[in-house]
């Protein structure tokens, strides 16, 4: 077991270095650089001299290899450097945006599971009944709708409904207040994006719950329990659901890591100053240090979640070999 854990953890390192190399190369393959973006976007004058001065100031004139070594070595020391765009420390910029993204992610996962697990279970129990069909249609629709479209229509609906109801249109606040300062304002800002993201996530979880549940319901021990004459809800709650949730838990873990993707678009639509928006900005500004740091954080989160899930799995399910 310990050997398995150590082996699993050691495997994380090459993945991280690989991701570092990939983002480093990709960012530099994109034509232009942050100096061109900064000097060009306003439409003022910019000449070769200005570009070179900018390169020198940001250290972009140094050999690529040294830049890469600095980046990787910095990452393992926890030093991400300063943003090339704002000149502020990368960690400071990320810290400023992290709370809102985290809040939305947590709320989205909560919302998603509150919807998904009961509905998924119900859907499996009533397989092929009209209820099942309706639940499945709702869930697949969640997967089929472009999330930015959903977000835009969602805001529009809020505006129109509030205008019809109160005479003046209302929308969630657009500047962030931490939850401990003004909980009501904070929640009114966060809940709608959380619903938008959560709906999509719930669709995935709902499908998983349904199929896992269907599978478990066919296991021999459930038949035995039925044969023993146990009350149906005890069978469901005690035996079936518990076992069916194992793969669902895995999925929740993976989905949480994927939420960042959902956040990228949703934060744009709702104008939330979170990690997802920072991501888009830093890629578009070709801010190498910031993008590299963000990618490494996402990859690290993803890899660690997967590793932890694997380990939990190995621990829970003795059939998995610690090869």
């Amino acid at each position: 077991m310990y050997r398995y854990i150590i082996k699993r953890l050691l495997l994380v390192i090459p993945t991280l270095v690989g991701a570092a190399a990939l983002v480093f190369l990709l960012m530099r393959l994109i034509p232009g650089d942050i100096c061109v973006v900064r000097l060009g976007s306003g439409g003022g004058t910019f000449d070769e001299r200005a570009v070179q001065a900018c390169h020198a100031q940001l250290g972009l004139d140094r050999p690529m290899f040294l830049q890469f070594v600095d980046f990787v070595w910095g990452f393992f020391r926890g030093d991400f450097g300063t943003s090339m765009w704002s000149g502020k420390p990368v960690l400071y910029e990320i810290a400023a945006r992290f709370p809102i993204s985290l809040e939305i992610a947590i709320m989205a996962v909560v919302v998603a599971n509150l919807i998904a697990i009961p509905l998924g279970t119900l859907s499996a129990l009533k397989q092929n009944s009209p209820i099942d069909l309706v639940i499945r249609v709702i869930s697949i629709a969640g997967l089929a709708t472009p999330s930015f479209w959903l977000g835009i229509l969602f805001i529009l609906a809020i505006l129109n409904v509030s205008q019809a109801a109160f005479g003046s249109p209302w929308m969630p606040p657009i500047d962030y207040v931490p939850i401990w300062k003004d909980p009501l304002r904070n929640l009114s800002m966060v809940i709608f994006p959380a619903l938008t993201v959560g709906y999509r996530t719930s669709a995935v979880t709902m499908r998983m719950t349904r199929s896992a549940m269907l599978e478990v319901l066919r296991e021999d021990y459930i038949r035995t329990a039925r044969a023993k004459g146990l009350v149906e809800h005890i069978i469901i709650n005690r035996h079936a659901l518990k076992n069916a949730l194992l793969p669902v838990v895995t999925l929740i873990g993976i989905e949480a890591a994927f939420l960042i993707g959902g956040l990228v678009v949703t934060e744009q639509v709702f104008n939330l100053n979170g990690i997802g928006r920072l991501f888009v900005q830093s890629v578009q500004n070709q801010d190498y240090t910031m993008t590299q740091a963000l990618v490494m954080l996402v990859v690290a989160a993803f890899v660690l979640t997967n590793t932890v899930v694997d380990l939990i799995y190995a621990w829970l399910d003795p059939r998995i070999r610690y090869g």
Partner: protein
Amino acid sequence: MTIAAPDSRAIPAILDDVPEIRRSILRRAWIFCRRQPLGTFGMVIVVIIAIAGLSADWIAPYSPTANDFAAMTEAPSWAHWLGTDQFGRDQLSRIIYGARTALIVGFSCAIIASVAGLVLGVGSAYFGGRLDLYLQGVLDVVMAFPLIIMALAVVAIFGTGVHNVIVAITIPLIPRCARVVRSSALSIREVPYIDAARACGFGHARIILRHMVPNVMAPFLILLTAFVGQAILAEASLSYLGLGVQEPVPAWGLMLQGGAEEYASTAPWIAVFPGLAIALTVFGFSLFGDALRDALDPKLRDR
């Protein structure tokens, strides 16, 4: 972006079904339709979209690209069933031609990604050892890598043509397919008759093609259908960030991006119809894929 992985342990069971499929496809299709009303509904949507895309040149009432300044942002009418867009172009015609773009993007991405995933997954599982380890490492990196960076890099380096959008969407899909195929293939590799085949002295190619590949066809097909929908959605998301297919090519994501941003309130038909086209198509592919999965997975079939 997550694909619900089909249960790999269920796959060997469909081996028995192969002759039956050959015997009576029609009968099986009928059973499929009866047992899977939603799946059939999905299939119907897919077929309609496919017909629209293939015959766009004949059925579209107007040119999808010609501007008409006399008919800008007109509401739906008998002349323009779905109204016109900002440039006076007929929305119905653009949606019909857009079906073609969607199918090209959807199927190209899905087929390339799943075939590449199949090759990598089966190869990785069959040969195992170092190759497997390294390949999985590389796939892990690609899979963990945020889609937007990859897409932006591809589009920024090569430009925004349809081909490049396809490349941008395909790359992140490959490891997802490879993973699922590999886990299915792994379980088959352990089955005694593979050992038997090897003992008989059959070559790797023959064992892989004749024995391994057919047995991972179920997850492969399921992923393939799922990928079509996902690719269409991904194109829309790229469009929202301005990196998808570009004007004047008729494409749903592109139509939706401009429309939803500026006209959601003043000319809702510009924002709603392309969105519906995307949602319906992806919906159709998902329903069909789900039904296919239920049908191919015997554990879910009884009752």
